[in-house]
């Protein structure tokens, strides 16, 4: 039976962005209805999924989240799986194999929890360095929203301003919790990096450090933040779902939005979705929020093309789906003579950020360097077994590989490039909807950075750590930070949303999150997405209050 529900605010997507907006709207007294394409699975099931995986699949972050046929997401365990959803083309297709999860709670299920703010300079690339674009506002405007996001999610971080990022800026509120101490591997990296002018900072992270936050326990170092924090010490949006329901919000799962309907006044009137029986339903409301991530949001807008909106909804600028960004990543697998012992504490807990800033950005990209802090025992065990060892020799080799190996990564700041574009593929999914096709080329700005700046620095860092062997990935990889597809700007001619993530074309449609980010910076995108979500929520509540 087709249904037609109604609510003040309709939100598509139950990830961090959708959940932050839902809660704020509910707190302001408005009704909220959320649509989630995928299933709602409880933490204990996902934790046991992870632990039941064979060791060689443990590093596939999507493996504990098998997709439903109607809500596919990318899995990369085999070639055919890799080709089964995202239709990726272009010179760096591999660098856009984005591993998001279409489950209630979204991709924060397996995010690292890292919360680097963007810097004042990151928001002014065009005026400072003549590349990319300037944001619609300065850092001062964004700062209070960063602080609110840190307190909404529970971000721990250092009290010492010298260890805070961005440097030389004022914070309106301290982090709600102090930092998580370094494990031995991170401490060693910090000491070594300092000798070559690289400052390894304790990462602000949405993870409870020594104290509870919001009814969630302190981190106890299970060291599997991805693919899932087994105790919800790390914020993920799934933890917000019961609270949203307790406040009166309604969540419909297995509801795949496929069309946004506009009326003659260019307002959004309804969103149509399929249930798993392929029955179509619709929901109507006053304000509509598409928060289904930087790939699904532009896809949904393009799918909604009709006579009234020939290029898709919100797309009079032809910018929907363009400027797709992520930080192109290179990794170095390093062997050393001395033990480093990663694996104590969270899987990521620090980064080198000072390499992301500087005048060189006129010519090539800045970048963030870091070391994975995953325990290496699984990888070491598999590698030792492949060597055909057994008995005591096997034990010794597992120990050596666990202690004396590391993975260093460098993530490059992307530019918004209009040719990096999401369109609708002629290949269809299980429901008959077009799959997303994405052309991706990291661009010369990033390639120059790798050649002239980051790869030499990566090698230098590895050697300083005592590397006897360095293997650098032959091509750019993805960082899973999907940005740019519904780009923000003050000019409706070349951008999709305004400074509040409101669509220029439709004043009751909001497209907050990574898609709205004008540039990407070098750090992880979630805290900026969350800040934009809170800014959008203020605008939504204001709009509902004043009609």
């Amino acid at each position, binding site marked *: 039976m087709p249904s037609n529900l109604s609510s003040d605010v309709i939100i598509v997507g139950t990830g961090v962005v959708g959940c932050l907006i839902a809660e704020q709207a509910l707190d302001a007294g408005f009704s909220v209805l959320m649509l989630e394409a995928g*299933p709602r*699975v*409880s*933490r*204990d*099931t996902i*934790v*046991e*999924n992870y*632990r*039941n*995986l064979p060791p060689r699949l443990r590093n596939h972050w999507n*493996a*504990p*989240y*098998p*997709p*439903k046929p109607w809500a596919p997401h990318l899995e990369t365990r085999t070639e055919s799986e890799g080709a089964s959803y995202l239709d990726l083309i272009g010179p760096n297709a591999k660098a856009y194999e984005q591993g998001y999860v279409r489950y209630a709670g979204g991709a924060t299920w397996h995010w690292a929890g890292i919360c680097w703010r963007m810097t004042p300079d990151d928001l002014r690339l065009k005026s400072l360095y003549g590349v990319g674009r300037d944001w619609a506002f300065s850092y001062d405007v964004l700062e209070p929203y960063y602080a609110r996001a840190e307190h909404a999610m529970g971000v721990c971080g250092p009290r010492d301003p010298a260890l805070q990022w961005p440097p030389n800026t004022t914070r309106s509120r301290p982090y709600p919790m102090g930092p998580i101490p370094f494990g031995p591997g991170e401490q060693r990296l910090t000491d070594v990096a300092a000798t070559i002018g690289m400052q390894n900072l304790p990462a602000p992270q949405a993870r409870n450090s*020594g*104290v*509870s936050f919001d*009814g*969630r*326990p*302190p981190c*106890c170092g*299970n060291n599997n933040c991805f693919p899932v924090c*087994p*105790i*919800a010490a790390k914020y993920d949006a*799934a*933890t917000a779902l*019961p*609270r949203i*329901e*307790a406040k009166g919000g309604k969540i419909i799962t297995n509801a795949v939005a496929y069309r946004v309907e506009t009326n003659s006044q260019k307002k959004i009137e309804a969103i149509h979705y399929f249930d798993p029986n392929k029955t179509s339903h619709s929901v109507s409301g006053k304000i509509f929020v598409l928060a289904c991530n930087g790939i699904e949001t532009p896809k949904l807008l393009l799918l909604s093309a009709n006579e009234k909106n020939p290029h898709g909804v919100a797309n009079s600028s032809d910018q929907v789906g363009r400027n797709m960004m992520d930080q192109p990543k290179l990794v170095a697998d390093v062997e050393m003579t001395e033990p480093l012992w990663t694996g104590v504490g969270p899987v990521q807990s620090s980064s080198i950020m000072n390499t992301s800033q500087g005048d060189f950005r006129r010519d090539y990209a800045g970048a963030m360097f870091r070391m994975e802090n995953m325990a290496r025992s699984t990888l070491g065990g598999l590698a030792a077994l492949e060597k055909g060892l057994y008995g005591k020799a096997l034990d010794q080799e597992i120990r050596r590989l666990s202690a004396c190996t590391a993975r260093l990564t460098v993530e490059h700041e992307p530019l918004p490039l209009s040719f990096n574009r999401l369109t609708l593929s002629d290949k269809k999914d299980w429901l008959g909807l077009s799959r997303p096709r994405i052309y991706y080329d990291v661009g010369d700005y990033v390639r120059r950075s790798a050649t002239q700046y980051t790869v030499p620095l990566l090698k230098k860092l590895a050697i300083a750590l005592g590397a006897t062997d360095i293997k650098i990935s032959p091509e750019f990889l993805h960082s899973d930070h999907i940005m740019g597809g519904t780009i923000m700007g003050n000019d409706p001619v070349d951008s999709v949303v305004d400074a509040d993530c409101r669509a220029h074309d439709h004043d009751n449609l909001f497209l907050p999150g990574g898609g709205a980010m004008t540039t990407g910076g070098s750090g992880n995108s979630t805290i900026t997405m969350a800040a934009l979500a809170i800014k959008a929520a203020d605008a939504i509540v204001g709009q509902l209050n004043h009609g």
Partner: protein
Amino acid sequence: MVNLMHRRLSAKLSFLAAFSGAVFLCSSASARSEGATDQGAYIAVTSDCVACHTAPGGKPFAGGLALKTPLGTMYSTNITPSTTFGIGDYTEADFSRAVRKGIRKDGNNLYPAMPYTAYSKMTDRDLHDLYVYFMKSVRPVESTPPKTSLPFPMNIRSSMMFWNILFRNDRLFQPDLSRSEEWNRGAYLVQGPAHCGTCHTPRGFLMQEKPSESLGGASLGSWYAPNITSDKISGIGSWSPENIKTYLKSGHIDGLAQAAGGMGEAVEHSFQHFTNDDLQAVATYLASVKPVRDPEDGNTSRFTLGRAISSADRVRGDQPIRSEDNSNMTGAELFMGNCASCHNFKAEGSRDGYYPSLWHNSVTGASNADNLIATILFGVDRHVSGVEAFMPGFGGRKSDAAQLNDEEIAKLTKYVLDTYGRPQVSVSGAEVKLIREGGAKSPLLALTRFGMAGSMTIITLACIYGVFRRIRA
């Protein structure tokens, strides 16, 4: 089930199910105001006034905490020296009458949720110091908490007059001169200001404490205040005085027990601030309390059951990767998915003791599952010496990140009892539901609702009998 209901509804009903609600006091609600060094402040701490008279996140002693009792929800009152909303116009005599006799300045009766039957033992000196503290050092708060309105006929406060005739103890603490000074100090604290019996002593039909089973263990809303008599099997007779002191000071002893629920609050707000001499005195007195044996305990103490067993071995190897919840999760799977990440897959906890072992643990070794169920539902949040001991709830609150249902919690509880604790204890989803909802309701209420006349007759007869007995005595 019948047995369970019988046990719950027959005797162990307490006005002081008080603590059963989700009771969390924020750090601003510390009893340590500026006058903390004076004697009255210390007496307020030993009497734990702040625990009930402060709402979560509220100002100290301003009242407003919702106390979920078997008879309905009560709200604690403002006991700051505000003349409009608090006790600012109380004379010392008024104050003493309220604290020790349960009568307000306006002559109305307090409900015995206020433990005046214990406070009645307090010395004049302590009462004086306490009065001075409240009048001089507590900041007046000019607001009034919600009014208590119990359902009829419990809203008739004067009915408490009869209860008082029967059960109020109007005698000050009487020292036993054959005992040491330390013992007498301990007895005074336990029976008087610290009001241990209010929670730990089982209650009779009219909710009076049963002196014959003093400190023998009692249900308290969702939680169970266990037997703390000197019995070596059912009580804490096997504990050393050091054990008792450490427990009261920290709320936690590896391999024995940890404080949650009302006891977690008592440690947080009261016991951790006791002087070492007073803790020693309490330990000395408790070691002498008449042993009470629960036949259900057989000959095994709740502290010695269970051992390390791998739960991981029971679930690995034959499980599919699921994209939806399995409604038939086994107890072992629930344990691995929800408990093992902190308590470890052999349930031995962490080496530093932050995560307690689930075997050799009073909660899993007890003869009833109440505290295990309540802990899973509501978690633990105990702040001692500025350090937090925390476990999340798994669905006791609607906003909890994990939401286990009644049957899942029953299955998990039974698995933990079978594997790591006392396997003879049975658990049902209905019992979980009852604890989730705050414990059993009083049969008094049912009686008065469905048979007002009959029950009042019984109560009246009981009162007449009691008065008669007193007169004869």
